[in-house]
């Protein structure tokens, strides 16, 4: 599978390594080259400097042949815009997007973007942890 990841933060860099270990071809985009320090030293994919909401940057990242696009920057709006470009302009089969705001997540899920809200998931995990007896 060919995967394009936007945002080389902790999650993006780690995901890039994991996918690569599974044999996928990974291109990761970030607008700050300093972020690429987070990539594993043996990362063999492509690290591309640029703004992921720019069509031309996405094109040079190989979005036209990509099987999946994942948006993981700190900005919810940047993530949804990039995912919609991937899905509706470049027809990438899967566009996955991190959205911190749970309400916005619900709306974009309805609009056909695969969305994950770490806010909801993490709050849920914490609740389960605190309320579980035994450990």
């Amino acid at each position, binding site marked *: 599978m060919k995967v394009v990841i936007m945002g080389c933060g902790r999650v993006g860099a780690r995901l890039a390594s994991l996918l690569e270990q599974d044999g996928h071809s990974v291109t990761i985009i970030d607008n700050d080259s300093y972020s690429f320090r987070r990539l594993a030293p043996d990362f063999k994919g492509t690290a591309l400097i640029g703004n992921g909401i720019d069509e031309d940057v996405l094109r040079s990242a190989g979005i036209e042949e990509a099987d999946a696009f994942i948006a993981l920057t700190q900005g*919810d709006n940047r993530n*949804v815009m990039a995912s919609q470009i991937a899905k509706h302009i470049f027809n990438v089969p899967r566009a996955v997007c991190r959205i911190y705001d749970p309400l916005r997540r619900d709306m974009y899920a309805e609009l056909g973007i695969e969305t994950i809200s770490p806010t909801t998931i993490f709050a849920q995990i914490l609740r389960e942890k605190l309320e579980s007896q035994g450990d």
Partner: protein
Amino acid sequence: MYVIVVGGGRVGYYLAKALLDEGHEVLILEKAAAIASIVSDELGSICVRGDGCEATTLASVGTNRADMLIAVTGDDEDNLVACQVAKHMFNVPRTVARIRNPKNENIFKTLGIDVIVNTTNLILESIEEEVPTHTLTHLRDIRDKGLGIVEVKIPPDAPTIGKPIRELSLPEGSVLSLVIRKARKPIVPSGATILEAEDQIIAVTSHESEEALRAALSGQ
């Protein structure tokens, strides 16, 4: 009309002011506390501090009864999301987004924004008009039709001067609408109209034919 303006910067501020003067009900949403308080001081209590991309904020200002939402922050992606949330969660009938990156025009159109205002191109067009070396200037785009109104100025040394319009090979998809001559009434040109130096020709043309139109009229 109830109009919500997202972004209280210079564009948002003056837009709100103009809308208020026209008698509309206006509300500005501004994320930054400092800017929100300046706008409130100057325009009265029409500015609410909050993120116009958040559904909770939009709900609290009665977005479901808004006739229009205009997003004019400095970030294209924020303007896109504010319009999409307004449209899909609050059924706002008309959404307007400002874009700064001209490349985003098509993307926003594809994603369902009703009106897109491309401020970078507007500035470029106004400057273009003032640069005398340009034979062709863009006066206005005709929305959604792929057409534009342009002005072509016939250069003083153009080989087309003295020729009737019917002898020029004008591109298909271009219509000459008006000829403006110094100190004379503007005329609607016919095939027999003879070009003079410094004629200003107003034409409607498709974007693709623009260059061919300029070349046909100026003979260069």
